[in-house]
């Protein structure tokens, strides 16, 4: 069966999703360069390898839905249409950042896109998402809340406490748990027992609280779209919370705490990974969700390699201009530190 037909996806959706995935990829690759050149301080986390989760999943939402995300937020914001220049400016602590330089990489908020509050505390947003869902239900707005967490967040007590409340009160909330742990820090392994989580599969946890839960391959954009769109429909019908665990293979570039870019992603890389250093080649060949999506689109005849290469070049150009915008943005005036303490 043709996987693209199965997903009932239009050509426009495929091309737009591909464009956003490439935008995220190049955003992160360029960001790593900015860090290595000393343009910003502090620890940060990149979304490389998870693009095929965030982009299709967030395309299932309505414009006014509430989204809560974490330290690994860059891909989510870009998937939703955030301006890469203002994101870079925030990460670089500049005046034109989304948060006026007061948040940084861990806390990028864009309220007009539904990102009210991005927490760098593992598990910090889990109760907040339930709260936004509570407000939507109380006000009968039809909105839902989406809680984007990693597998490690399930180790926090906030997770079971919030699952219990969301289930008891039938709150319209989607828990999208991106399990990127397979070959990385080695936390929750999903289907197998790990050193840090006795429950496995991880979907057992929400199921204890009677929250329907399923697993999906997070490197397969069409599979993610199918599952998330179906589940979002159920939440909007008033069926209460839902939980999805996505599996991705950790990008070996972020195996250390300070990522490196072994090769700049390109459309050609989808068919010939020899440009990648040997240590990284297998990941680009077998586990890179962006390259897999590019191959799928071309093989299905939805676009040619040349057309996708043009889209890729546009993404590179957009990111290049975004970085220049951020680097040209001034640092905030020191007195800015004293504003926005109280609303």
């Amino acid at each position, binding site marked *: 069966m043709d996987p693209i037909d199965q997903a009932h996806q239009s050509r426009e959706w495929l091309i737009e999703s591909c464009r956003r995935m490439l935008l995220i990829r190049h955003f992160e690759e360029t960001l790593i360069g900015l860090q290595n050149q000393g343009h910003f301080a502090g620890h940060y986390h990149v979304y490389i390898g998870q693009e095929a989760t965030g982009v299709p999943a967030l395309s299932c939402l309505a414009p006014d839905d*509430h989204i*809560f995300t974490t330290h690994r937020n860059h891909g989510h914001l870009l998937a939703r249409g955030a301006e890469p220049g203002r994101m870079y400016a925030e990460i670089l602590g500049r005046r034109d*950042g*989304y*948060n*006026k*330089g*007061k*948040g940084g990489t861990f*806390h990028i*908020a*864009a*309220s007009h896109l539904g990102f*009210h*509050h991005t*927490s760098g*505390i593992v598990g*910090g*947003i*889990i*109760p*907040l*998402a*339930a*709260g*936004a*869902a*509570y*407000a*939507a239900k*109380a*006000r009968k707005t039809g*909105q839902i*809340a989406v809680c984007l967490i990693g597998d490690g967040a399930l180790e926090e*007590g*906030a997770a079971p*406490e*919030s699952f*219990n*409340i969301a289930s*008891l*009160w039938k709150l319209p909330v989607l828990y999208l748990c991106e399990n990127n742990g397979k070959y990385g820090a080695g936390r929750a392994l999903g289907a197998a027992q790990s050193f840090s989580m006795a429950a496995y599969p991880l979907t057992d946890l929400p199921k204890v609280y009677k929250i329907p839960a399923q697993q999906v391959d997070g490197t397969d954009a069409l599979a993610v779209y199918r599952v998330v769109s179906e589940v979002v429909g159920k939440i909007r019908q008033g069926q209460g919370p839902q939980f999805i665990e996505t599996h991705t293979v950790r990008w070996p570039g972020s195996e250390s705490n300070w990522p490196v870019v072994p090769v700049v992603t390109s459309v050609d890389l989808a068919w010939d990974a020899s440009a990648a250093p040997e240590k990284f080649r297998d990941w680009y060949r077998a586990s890179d969700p962006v390259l897999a999506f590019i191959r799928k689109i071309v093989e299905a005849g939805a676009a040619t390699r040349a057309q996708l290469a043009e889209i890729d070049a546009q993404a590179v150009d957009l990111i290049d201009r975004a970085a220049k915008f951020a680097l040209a943005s001034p640092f905030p005036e020191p007195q800015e530190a004293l*504003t*926005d*303490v*109280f*609303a």
Partner: protein
Amino acid sequence: MRELAYYEAKLEGLREILAADERVHFITEIATGFLGLSPHRVHFRQIASSFPDRVIAPPISELAFCGVAIGAAMAGLRPIVDLITASFAFEAWPQIVNEAANAFYMSGGQTRAPVVFHLLHGLRGAGAAQHSHSPQAMLWNCPGLKIVLPSSPRDVKGLLKTAAASDSPTVFIDHVLLFEYRGSVPENDEAIPFGQAEIKRSGADVTVVATSLMVQRSLAVAERLAKDGIQVEVVDPRTIVPLDFDTIMGSVEKTGRVVVVDECHQSCGVAAELVARIAEAGFDKLKAPIRRVVTLDVPIPFSPRLEEFVSPSEARIAEAIRAAAR
């Protein structure tokens, strides 16, 4: 003028707030709602039954239900969340101090979290070490939270109204031993703005700056000392964030003698901060060393004899005022 018991004014305020704004939801343990273990808690049930969709009983999950209230506030509601005993706030500490307090600032002014956390603080009698905390000083160390400490029937109602209308997360810290006090509460009274201290009693000799239950305790001491010829002025900040420092300093300049009375532990307590600010701003106005009467730096013991010994008692307040007046 109409006189009400403190608990009556507090419940009247809550009822009027719920009736006036349907964005207000009240998350509480229905059996104790708002009044802790006070026998008057039965009166809360009438409010709960009047607003069945907006008075919500959560599981015993302080971390999650405070987070739910904060998230709901970010999405357009104005929740009041009742933690009952202030010590229970520690179970929700990450959400109160690391999410709610930071939300507006960290988002660069994009996201408001208009939530009210209600706590009953202090030595309530036989609370022992785990049910007697006064976390207001710890919370004062978390910029982004407004902190309210009412002490009279009129204040509890008026300040509750302002808290419910505040666009910033607000910690409303009450004391169960205030509930029986009676005082005038005008009909259709206005909300009381934050950051307006009230001089609860005028006097020319010694300034007492006191908060919460310590205001009433200091007023009782002041009446007795007046018979001995010491005229005490009692200043009640009513909110410590924002703090009306001008009114405090106005009194300090008048008397030149200061006692600060507060129920936090001594080290880094509310009194410690007030004393530091008064000393910085008005050292040349002082005629005697500033004194503070606070809870001794030990966990709160159970036995009534021991609890009385560590508390800022009337005897210790009187002793400090006499010493300051000399």
